[in-house]
């Protein structure tokens, strides 16, 4: 059994506290994430997802409660840099995250700041670029890359710091369908092959189908936590009503309610195709 890597306990966070504009973004949230897990975090706009993400690498400090990363409390100022090295963040807009004029220089930016020897920096940059599948683009100018490639450069920049965990905050929102698939495939491989803990934040449920577990937030509280199939099945019953199940899960539910005997928890095209093909073979006639 893996031990918890991230422990969030009774976390509260208030923006602009003690002012008329005070907003309680997190309202008593507890959550633990083990090393090697792939956790999807879903919720509507304003549910607290991004605020939570910013606590995971000490960009924000709790108003109340506690966040521990690798056993270190994020309120401990002396631990902040260790925490940030362990938890890398990738944000929504790739254009705001790239700083250099050449891809490999961009990826080297982090390790250079750590003051590592040049040979080690080169090794890490090579590894990071190969891992995200951009080895051939090392000399390219980032602004000439596609959206998906830019986001993968941003991921490589985080990987070059050798983090234990990577947090992606709406990192697929601005991408076209191919770019989105590239990023999701990359993230999945990082988790499955490199054992990196992944926390993927999105309000699009389809983005989260690779997760081991999906956590749903509403009004700064945790309202669901379970495997994807289970969470998708009850998404419409959750408070807030700001999320939709992935289209395939929705369709499977409709077909079940139409009398087709499909199993529960179907949410990928592959699974639904298999289930329908099996149903057609057995020749079960739907009611009605």
């Amino acid at each position: 059994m893996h031990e918890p890597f991230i422990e969030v306990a009774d976390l509260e966070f208030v923006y602009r506290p003690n002012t008329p504009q005070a907003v309680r973004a997190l309202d008593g949230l507890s959550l633990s994430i083990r090393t090697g897990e792939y956790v999807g975090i879903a919720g509507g706009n304003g549910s607290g997802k991004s605020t939570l993400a910013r606590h995971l690498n000490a960009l924000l400090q709790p108003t109340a409660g506690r966040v521990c990363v690798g056993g270190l409390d994020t309120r401990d100022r002396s631990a902040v840099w260790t925490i940030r090295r362990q938890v890398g963040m990738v944000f929504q807009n790739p254009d705001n995250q790239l700083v250099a004029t050449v891809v490999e220089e961009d990826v080297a930016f982090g390790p250079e700041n750590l003051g590592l020897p040049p040979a080690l920096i080169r090794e890490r940059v090579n590894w990071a670029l190969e891992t995200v599948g951009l080895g051939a683009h090392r000399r390219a100018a980032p602004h000439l890359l596609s959206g998906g490639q830019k986001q993968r450069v941003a991921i490589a920049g985080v990987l070059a710091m050798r983090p234990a965990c990577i947090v992606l905050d709406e990192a697929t929102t601005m991408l076209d369908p191919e770019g989105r698939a590239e990023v999701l495939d990359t993230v999945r491989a990082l988790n499955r092959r490199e054992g990196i803990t992944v926390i993927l934040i999105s309000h699009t449920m389809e983005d989260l189908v690779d997760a081991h577990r999906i956590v749903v937030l509403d009004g700064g509280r945790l309202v669901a936590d379970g495997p994807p199939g289970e969470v998708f099945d009850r998404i419409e019953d959750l408070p807030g009503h700001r999320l939709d199940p992935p289209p395939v899960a929705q369709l499977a539910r409709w077909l079940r309610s139409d009398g087709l005997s499909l199993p529960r928890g179907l949410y990928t095209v592959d699974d639904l195709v298999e289930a329908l093909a099996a149903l057609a073979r057995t020749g079960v006639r739907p009611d009605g």
Partner: protein
Amino acid sequence: MAEPLIDCQDVAHTYLRGTPMAQDALRGVTLQIRAGDLVGIIGPTGSGKSTLIQHFNGLLRPTRGTVRIAGEDLWAPQTDRRRVRQRIGLVFQFPEYQLFEETVRADVAYGPRNLGLPEDEVSARVDDALRAVGLDPGAFGPRSPFSLSGGEMRRVALAGILAMRPEVLVLDEPAAGLDPRGKADLLDRIERLHRSGLTVILVTHSMDEVARLARRIVVMHGGRVVAEGSPREIFAREEEVRRIGLRLPQAAELVRRLRQRGLAVPDALTIAEARVAIRAAIREGSRGTV
């Protein structure tokens, strides 16, 4: 046949022309948009979609070719571009970043006030525009735009464009970044605006969105229009769609895969259509085997 509202003939655009950084964003686009249409423009990042729509209201001047609005050449010397431009309302990506006034009402009033309209006309337009995006003028008008949710802010930005009373609404990724409920609300508003007579052009990465909303789809790739047709026609060309880096709507993908498995499933572009199609196919299939 009525004159097209927007008529692009061989429009090319090169950014940073004459420099080593020169980049051909459009390589000869010929395209007509007719009054009352609801057109979806799709294409991978960098295919020229955003560059193209900035030609519709003269924000960019073509390096080659002509853009006509209701027959009027936008770049002819005698054309009053300011007036023509008002006919085309362009809503950029994340338009809420451009909100700046202290109240919602002042923000929406900014454009019409700049037209020099009398205050009562400005006020009437602001009320209409806010109602059209589903925001009660009394409740939202006095509030700070920055106290609103992301979806509400986006609707205020859209109201600011509607208050200019354009004939064409051009939206670049209008639902990007909104959660599913916010997205559904906004798309519903856009559909209603179209039904009320507005011509709508929608640039989007979401194949599901475009399959549901658009009457006609324009596919761009490498600065060119590579396909045009109804959603059904476009998504029937599955190989081509895939080759340029786009995907089928999920329902269409599902139908394609079921057909590969030997099920006779009728066409479907949305999951609501797929529900009907699959029920029919399973029923037929079981009749065959019983």
